């Protein structure tokens, strides 16, 4: 049986996918994940999930974010200096996300 492994670097972080292991049960899956994925990488916590329990949808199935121009959804569209630092921080995150989306769409990534 295959188990997908998610690692959290430090407390409070997100668990992100880092690989998978073969194991007959959850306990051994955790043990193997520990050995294979958490020996050298900084690790605070691991999750294992049976592969069959994971659902997936990808770009072959859908166009994430739709296919029409949705620039009205982005902070960058509104051409004002951000009113406060937290607004600026949000705009920076959005600009970065949009840039990454474009890079992936253009095949640069």
């Amino acid at each position, binding site marked *: 049986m295959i188990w997908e492994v998610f690692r959290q670097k430090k407390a409070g972080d997100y668990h992100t996918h880092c690989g998978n292991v073969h194991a007959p049960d959850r306990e051994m899956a955790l043990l193997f994940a520990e050995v294979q994925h958490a020996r050298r990488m900084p690790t605070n916590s691991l999750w294992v999930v049976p592969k069959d329990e994971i659902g997936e949808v990808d770009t072959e199935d859908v166009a994430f974010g739709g296919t029409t121009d949705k620039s009205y*959804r982005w*902070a960058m*569209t509104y051409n*004002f200096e951000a*009113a*406060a630092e*937290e607004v600026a921080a949000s705009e920076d*995150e*959005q600009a970065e996300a949009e840039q990454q989306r474009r890079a992936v769409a253009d095949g640069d990534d």
Partner: protein
Amino acid sequence: MDLETVKERAGPREFSPKDEMPEEYRKAATRMIQFHANSEIMGAYLERPFIRQAPSLERKLAFSAKVQDELGHGQLLYRAAESLGIKTRDEMLDELANGQGKFLNCFHYPMESWVETPMIAFFVDGAAMRRQATLKSTSWEPYAHAMDKVCFEEGFHVKHGEAMLHELMTGSKKEQEMAQEAFEKWWPRIIQFFGPTDKQSTHHGFASEVGLKQKSNDELRRAFLNTYIPKAEKYGLEIPDTPTIEKNDDGTYNVAEDELNWDEFFQIAKNEYEPGLGQIDGRKKAQEAVAWVRESMDSHEQRLYGGGESPQAAD
């Protein structure tokens, strides 16, 4: 974990559902996150009619995107609240419908005209964002994670709100006057957004000791005014005379809090303010109208997975 340990460890993102948290912590966190979630939902319902009333296609698209975002934030937050094990999402949504669920003062007031929309979308959302940015460091990890996504999206709301305000304040004389009138109506409510001064706040002490709340009402209000008063003035809005606001030598502001209508505020806080009851009932009717969607989803889940009661998997 005992309460003393919680207070010692109370740092950003310190506690998660795998920690055994004392009931006092779980109840305080539930109260706070449920209030936040309810406010997202009630804010969305307040703004929803203006999707239809938007004056242009761009505004209509942006406004519907914003309302959709806010409802999504509500769902994220109910999940974060549910993870404390005190109430399920269904219970919280029912409480909101039957008038027990509490939410932000500003969303109890009806919004009648398009010129009022930037008062919410710029000032109230700006105030909310100030507060939410500090909650990225709350001690309940699922709440902090919800704030990551909320803050990511919220920058668009505030900047779109500013675009609407700019449009009105550079428009016709009539538009400017109407915007000023709306500002005067909303200004005291916006200042009250941050709640009573620290001295009178009933829940702050504990929430702060256990790291749920990172900044006090007064600190947040001050930071908001320091940023948004100059913005209002820049667009030509006149700050109303009440409450008295004094400018300090260092450019910061002091507000005469006691000039505000706190009787109305506390009436609102108890869900006893008449116009607010209309807002609550309006949402309740909307919830009832889509009961068939929830029921068909529940029965589908029942068919697939049987009767296992698991709030974690309920959505």
